[in-house]
């Protein structure tokens, strides 16, 4: 939990950014189609915060993120490096309700 939350602290204004295209298969949880730039040092927790912000949820819903069919378990930056991608290309990011037990984000 603590390492997961760390990514927000270092997400400063001048961090490298990448454009993401958020999508979900769950029509009840979809956000408007939009061009969104996010710091590349975001991890699951930061992205989950973002989607909740966009959905204006009263009670935060924990989300998991899939890029190219794989669950994001690192920062976006680490993912880009591993996949040999640059931040110049928009990234398609799919989100799903987190499979993890709710207590995991209980203190959110």
């Amino acid at each position: 939990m603590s390492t997961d939350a760390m990514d927000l602290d270092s997400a400063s204004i001048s961090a490298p950014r990448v454009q993401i295209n958020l999508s979900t298969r769950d029509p009840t949880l979809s956000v408007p189609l939009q061009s969104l730039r996010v710091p590349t040092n975001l991890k699951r927790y930061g992205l989950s915060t973002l989607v909740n912000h966009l959905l204006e949820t009263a009670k935060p819903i924990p989300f998991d993120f899939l890029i190219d069919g794989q669950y994001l378990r690192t920062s976006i930056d680490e993912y880009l490096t591993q996949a040999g991608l640059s931040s110049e290309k928009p990234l398609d990011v799919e989100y799903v309700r987190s499979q993890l037990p709710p207590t995991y984000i209980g203190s959110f």
Partner: protein
Amino acid sequence: VTRLIGNPKHEGLEDMDVDMELDDNETFEKALTETGHTATVFNEEAQALWKLYENKTRILSLSLTEQLRLILEPTLSTKLRGDYRTGKRLNMKRIIPYIASDYKKDKIWMRRTKPSKRQYQVMIALDDSKSMSESRCVELTFESIALVARALSHLEVGQISVVSFGETTRLIHPFEQPFTAQSGANVFAGLSFMQTKTNMKSLVETSIKLFREARQMNQQSDLWQLELIISDGICEDHQEIQRLVRLAHFEKIVLIFVIIDAAGGAMGAENYNSKSKGSSSILDMKEAVFTDQGDGRGPKLQVNRYMDTFPFSYYLIIRRIEDLPGMLSTALRQWFSQAAEAG
């Protein structure tokens, strides 16, 4: 007769003042034959590409030339005059006597007799980063380059240089050389739109340095320096760039940012309802910002409009190439009137 867009006054313009310089196309053909044996296929492709875009934007380019002439030329005192054996332009009044005299009265040329009081140095900066090709900006960018470079070189008010930027900033064409069709081909050949970073900070820093050097080389007391940045407008470090933009302004370098917003144009058209992923105007782009408020409650998320922090004060958003001449001259006119007010 081709009618210049937005400038009907110039139909049949200057029939007494025939420009005897080679048309760029002829220069281009000449360059082709001269280098024909050694030129690589790559260079020939670049030349063909330049010629294509030059032809595509010819009329718009003439329109921009004439609009800029109205803005820039009142500040130039140079006139073509006199009767010389060699010169810049033919004096048509001397042609009939010339023929009638069996080609003896051959002082048929006019020259620039006074040095211009004001000289311009214009740097064109081109975004070579991958986001340009990802956002399908390449076509509109090529058109913009050809249009602007040709209009400026026809204007004959000063020197043109071209730099590209991305991960690194590179000088493609220096101020000292005239901008020819071959220069245009070199510019196109120098662009890949594959650079994996967009270091706008480095661009502005390098530009200031190049302008400082160019000012030292130039003896003109009244030298105006202008930079046109052609880019999709996506960059980081807005605060730091803004600081450098202020420094450039302080050094009397005018920065005008031409945002190529190809996706914005596409969205406005028939694709409006299609769900093309992330292809929307830069004006609709948002940015997630996490800031620590220092209240011990952790970082706070804000979703802002990208353009709210855009670091350049003078910018225009181009969605169709037809918009460029009018918008660019309007931006320049605004800048000139503000500069005049400031004294």
